[in-house]
Structure formats: structure tokens, C-alpha cells
């Protein structure tokens, strides 16, 4: 029981931080002047904010049905954003986060892997990739697959070392 609680707190922490950070990052990217204002991302940004709000609502909700509705709402906004920009790794990551929170481990891990695929080797997304591997670690733990969890954690650590050294 205690362990589950701990895990869910950890999950909450990671996801809220991630959502906030990514929304801010996007806002920054759009505002920075060296980057020609790519306004199509403003539509994506608005949808990410919608998703983030729905997600927060879901976290606070105690009624399981309404909780699930709020998470699906978040997922729907993210899928809508993907229709506008299917290659934005942040959107895939957030979708993975929503599924992880719902305990849909397999789907969460797959979505995070997809996010990593679109992140490629771009230094801009190093941090996002670390998050993705952490998310996969949690998903593997959720599935009770410790081998997979260990491997994913190693990947996260290797990336983090490469980034902060």
C-alpha cells in the first residue's frame, strides 16, 4: 500500500513538472527572437495548455469516473495537437504521461518510446529523453517487469551522465 502511494506521488511529481516545463519551453521557444515565430505551434501550445489543465483536474478529482473523464479529455487535446504536429516529441511524451497516470503501463511505455524516436539526437530534447526513460522505468515497474525497468533506468542514467558531465 505504502509503496503504491509512494509511486503515485512520484508519478504525480514527474508529470506535473513535465507538463509545466514543456508548456513553458514551448512558450519560450515561440517568444525567442532568433527563432522565426512559428505560429502554427501556437495552436499546439494552446492545446497543450488545455491538456495540462484537464490533467490537473484529473489529479484533483476523487470520483474515479470523473477522474478518468478528465484524463481522457487531456488525451483528446493531445491527440488533437498531434494532428497539427505529429512529430513534436513533447506531445507524445505528455500523452505517455497521461497513460502512465491511468496505469495503462504498456501504452505509456510505447508512447514514450515514440517520443524518443521523434526526439532523435537533437540536444534540445536530451532532457525529454531522460524523462521518457524514467517514464518507461515506471511503466516497467508497473508491469512488474524488473529486467525492463533496470534497463530503462540505465538508459536514463547514461543519458543524464552524458548531459550533465
Amino acid at each position, binding site marked *: 500500500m505504502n509503496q503504491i502511494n509512494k509511486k503515485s506521488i512520484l508519478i504525480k511529481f514527474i508529470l506535473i513538472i513535465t507538463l509545466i516545463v514543456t508548456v513553458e519551453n514551448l512558450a519560450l521557444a515561440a517568444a525567442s527572437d532568433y527563432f522565426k515565430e512559428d505560429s502554427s505551434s501556437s495552436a499546439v501550445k494552446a492545446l497543450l495548455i488545455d491538456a495540462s489543465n484537464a490533467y490537473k483536474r484529473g489529479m484533483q478529482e476523487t470520483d474515479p469516473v470523473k477522474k478518468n473523464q478528465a484524463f481522457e479529455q487531456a488525451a483528446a487535446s493531445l491527440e488533437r495537437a498531434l494532428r497539427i504536429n505529429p512529430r513534436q516529441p513533447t506531445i507524445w511524451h505528455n500523452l505517455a504521461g497521461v497513460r502512465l497516470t491511468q496505469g495503462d503501463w504498456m501504452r505509456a511505455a510505447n508512447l514514450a518510446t515514440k517520443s524518443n524516436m521523434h526526439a532523435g*539526437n537533437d540536444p534540445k530534447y536530451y532532457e525529454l529523453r531522460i524523462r521518457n526513460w524514467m517514464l518507461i522505468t515506471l511503466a516497467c515497474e508497473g508491469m512488474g517487469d524488473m529486467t525492463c525497468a533496470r534497463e530503462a533506468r540505465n538508459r536514463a542514467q547514461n543519458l543524464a551522465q552524458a548531459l550533465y558531465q
Partner: protein
Amino acid sequence: MRRTKTFQNIRRGRANYATAGARRRTLHRRPPRRRAFSFRWYWLLFIIIMFFCGSYVSELDVQVRAKFEGQRWALPARVYASPLELYTGLRLTPSRLSKELNELGYQNTSAPKKAGEYWHNKNEFLIITRAFKFWDASDLSRTVQIRFADNQISSVRDLSHNGKRASPLIRLEPKLIGKIYPAHNEDRILVRSGEVPKHLIDALIAMEDRNFYHHWGVSVMGMLRAFVANFRAGKLVQGGSTLTQQLVKNFYLSSERTLKRKINEAIMALLLEWHYSKDEILETYLNEVYLGQSGKRAIHGVGLAARFYFNRPLNELDLSQLALLVSLVRGASLYNPRKHPKRALARRNLVLDVMVKQGKITAAEAQHAKAMPLGITKKKSESVFPYPAFMALVRQQLHRDYNEEDLRSEGLQIFTTLNPLIQNAAEKAMENALKKKLEKKRPKATNLEGAMIVTSSDQGEILAMVNGKNTRYAGFNRPLEAKRQIGSLMKPAIFLTALEQYQTYNLITPLNDGPYKLKTKSGIWRPKNYDHRYHGYVPLYRVLAKSYNVATVRLGMELGLNKITHTLRRLGVKRKFNRLYPSMLLGSITLTPLEVTQMYQTIASGGFRVPLRSIRNVLDRNGKPLQRYSLSIEERFDAKPIFLLNYALQQVMKEGTGRYVSRTLPKELVFAGKTGTTNNYRDSWFVGFGSELLTVTWVGRDDNKPMGLTGASGAMIIWRDFIKSVHPNATAPITPSGVEWRNIDGKDIPFIVDEQMGMGSGSLFFAGMY
């Protein structure tokens, strides 16, 4: 239940009261006598008659309430395309936007004032959008200004919030693309009494039942007036029925004209008025009334009639249009404005005159309305739907979760993935290319048919589905049902199997395309290349790009048929193959275009299996969310070998079988593709994908006779025309970590350098999934 009880109590109460009243009167008139009771035979008769009358009335009462309180009508399911989302940066031309708006029934005016109107001048639009309830949000009506530059939306501004605010995203309401009708083809769009324009109610009451708000369901005065009017005219010019009686007649009773029916009608009208408010009765009337016919389909209710005649929602109609709807109440076919415009106009103006006479509108208003043309759309809106092939797929997917009865009667709202702009471009490309280009190319190329499926590369949403060159006709559904040999479309499965063994194979591994024979059960097989030549040792990627058969068969036999079948499974091909033959390496297996799409979807999405979806979500008749079909993906292949395969498929377009056709496409677009041709040119296939769209195209004859076209000279031409018209995003795939580019003989070629294969390559949490 509760209601019934209350009602019985009320009745009992009234009965008690009546008895008490009678007793009081008795007391007053006659002094009490010693003899308490004296029997009179007619009392018994009276009681017996009252008993039968009472039970008859209560029987009718049960009928009246049961139907009124239950689900009043079977409503067809309504199927919608995906909505057009407008945001800065969207590739769209002004003419396409105005076409889209017109199809949604928006009116082009110089000064838009209400929802459903817009103004357009060259590169600028001012649109007042309609409110619409989607799965995820209720979008309100908004006034937006949209500007275009270089066939892109350059700005979207929301003017409804006082100041001019940049708005990131505006969604138009989705286009209706189909309905699933109830058994008797009844069709209606329910309206609530609060949404009905006042003019409509005024006109209806003025024409049909001016005492509606004052009578109890039956109007003696009305009947007398009608009798006098008819007597004077010497024919039937006026009906004496109240609206309530008319409703009873249509709603509960058959159309026979007997005295018994007339009596029933009157009793039921009284009962209806007793139980329900005027508003409830009027609302039901407005939804029940018969207002037209479209083939087998009966047009019921003012909501649907507004769509049917004007292609607009009821609340957007003006006085003249509302008067026309009311004029149809008396004879939908007699005053049919499409068939008898003059008669309809006269009747409409009569309605307006009567409204003036009864003080419902001013003479000036009537004058203005009379000056308006009928304003009927030529096309019977919501009658014929243009995408039967796609609808068949939607129904197939719906049947997994809903039974036929619910689909036909519950008024479900089904939101699909179909993108009308892409669908129309695909249809046009198919029709033009087949009729004007391909059928004239080869003498054998007659009676060509085709199929095309377009999906979103990463999400697997089916955006378009084209069936043959006459796409409006339902019939043999080629995208879903035409099982055809796939030819060289098979090859990527073989090369992917090789590239996964990255320690043995890379893109420049030399493969032997020299003479080759192999023993099979039916004798010795010597595979041949299309050019009937052998090419010696050729780098792996070029074998795929040039689609060399001999080297491919040799590679496939080296890898083993079992492994390749396993790769097919992982790619998403579910069809069972009883036995494995070497000829399957050259595509002797048969698949439908939809199955081919599912197979290539896994490649286009970077190694993730994405179930193809045609439905996004379902709402009930009141807009309450029922179900959402969410995006689900499953990693089936590591990103690295998929990236290498994708590179080889790009070479198809640059130096391989697709080079001639792809030369005519804009250079900045990066596509991967594969041509497929089967024995004696029976099938012409092309699969092409970029970062946004995956397209599978097939051309052939329904009778499977040779038609002389290869993948590149047939299907690929259609694809090329389609791409030119929609100009999708097509950027190079992102190089995954673990892949490095090296320059080999002046050509940059990717190699797998990371020893660690992906988490999802079947090694860890996805093991044993397929």
C-alpha cells in the same frame, strides 16, 4: 411510475369530489327519507355504460402516455467527417475555405450578423461560426477574421472578445457524411421548444389553430368555423382540427377516416392536453409534422426540414423561410417548393398575409419577406451522401461495439476521421488519371478500376478512401474487399528482416543478382527480373530500389520463409497463409488494399503498429460522450532498422523504379515509396509515404485480366497527381540515436552503430506479443 401514481391519485380525488358534490345537491333538493335506497333499472344501465366508457378512455389514456413519455421517435445515427481546424500556418487556399463554408450552409453576405454567415474578399474572411458540441468541448459561436498569404493561413483573430485577440485555433462544425436510418427510413432532427424561432410558432398557430393556447384539445368554435367556411366554399378549404388533434392523428392513429377514429382523436386530444403542457405538445408537433419526401425517406419535423430545404439550422432561417415551412404543413407535396415553386410562393405569401391579419407581424415585415425569393437549395441536403465506401468501413467498425438496432434508432452522433479536403483530392486524382490518362495509355488498359486509402502516417487515422472511378456508387468495395496479389510490395518485409540482423546486413551489403534456381514441389523455379537481365552483385539498398527479383529471392531464402512470415505478422498482416511458398517472396500472396495499408502503416510510423481507425468518438443524441477511440501504438520494430529501410525506400524515388514519376514532384518533399506489379500486369500498386500521409493506391481490372500497367506507370501516376494537389508535409525522418551517416563513394548512407537494440524490438516488454 411515480407520475402514474400521482395521476391516479388525482383522478381518485376528482371522483371523490364529484360524489361529494352529488351528495350535497341531493341533500339540498330533497329532504331525507326513511327509505335510503330505491332501485331504478336505468341507474344500473348508466353505471354499466359509464364503466365501459371509463375503461375505454383509460385504455386510450395508457396509449397516450406510453408513447408520449417513452422514447418518441427512432432517430437515425448521424455520421460526421472530421472538422476543419483553422490555425495559423495551415496550408489551405481561400477558395477551398469558401467551398467548405458553402457546403456547411454558411451564407456569404456583405455584413455578417449572425452565426452561419461570412464575408469573403480575396485573402480575407470574416466568419461567424456556429456553436457545436464536440466530444472534448462545446465550441461557442465566434466571430473570427482569417487572413491568407501564399496559400497558407497567416493569421486567425477572434473578434468576439471585444478587442481583437489572436486566436490559436478555430474549429468549424463537421460536415455530415452519412446516416444510419431506422427501419422505416424516418428521418428527423429534434428541436427543443426553446430553440424554435417565434415567427415559426406564430405562423403555425395563425394558420392552423389560432386558439391553440386557449382550447382543451378540441375546439368547437374551430369546427364550426371550418364547417361554415367549407359550406360557403362548397368544398373542403379548412380543417377544424386543432394542432393537438393533428398531432394525435399523426402520432397515434392510422390515416383511415372513420367516425370511431374521429372520436378517438378527440378523446386522445383531450387526454393529451390534460396531461401535458401546451409547450410540450407544440414541441412534439413541431418534431412530428411531415414536411416532405426524399425518395424512400420521409422528412419529419421542422429541424430536418430546415436542413432539407435550406441546408441551414432552423434558428438561422428568416421570416420568409419559416413561413414557407409552415405552408408545407397543409400539403408537403402539393406545395413542394422544388417541384411547384409558383404554388409554394403563393402559399408562403398567404401565410405572411394571415400573420399580418392576426397582428403577429407588421405589414412592412411581411412586405419585406414577400420580396424574398424562395431560397431553396437545389440539392436536397442530407439526402445523398458521397462516401459510401468509407461509410461501409465505419459501419464495420461500429458493429464491434454497437448493435444494429441502436445504430438505427438511438440518434448516435458518430465522429469519423474522414478529411473531406483530402478525400476530394484523392477522388479527383483517381477519376482523372483513370479516365484521361491510364485508360488511354495501353490498348489493354480498358475498364480500369482502382482503390486508394490515405492515412495519417503516425496516427493511423483513415483520412480518405476512394473506390473506383465512380466513387459515389456503393457496390463492390475495392479498398476493403478486393483481394489482390501484392507483387513487389512484399519486398520491404524481406529487407526489414535482413536489416534487423544488423551485424550481418547493412544497406551496402552486396547481394548476388546472378542466375538462380531453386527446387520447389512443383519443379525447378528460376526467378526472373522484370528487365530479364541479371545484375551481378548489387548493394542491398539498390536491390530494393530497383526491385530486383533474383537477388531478393536469394536473400529471402537465405533468411528463411518462416522469419519473413513472422515479419509480416509483426507488420500487422493478420491473414493466415496455409503454406509458405518461395513465390511469396515475390508477392504471390493476396491482400486487400486495407491490409496493405495496415502493413505499411507500421513502416511509415517508424516501426510502431498503429491500428487503423475510422472513428474518433461517439456521442449520444443529447451530446453526451459515449465512447472515444483513442490513439494506441505498439512498438514492433526498433527505430534503427526501420530508418534504414526507410532510406532504401527513399532511393526507390531517387534512383529506383519510382524515379521518373517522382521527378515531377516538388524537390523539397521527401517521400519513401514502393511500386508493385504482378504477373502479366494484372495489378499496379504504389505505396508512398512522407512525414504526414501514407497512401496506398491500386489499379487493376475487377475481372483480374491483364491491363498492361506497372506500379510506376499506373498507381504511381494517381498518387503523384494526388500529392501535387494536396502538397502534404514530407520532411526527412529524424535520424534515431544509434544511427550514423557515412559517406560511401560520394553517397551518404546511414549505418547502425549502437550495439544496443531498442527496448521494443521484441526483446523486453513486448516479447511474446505477436
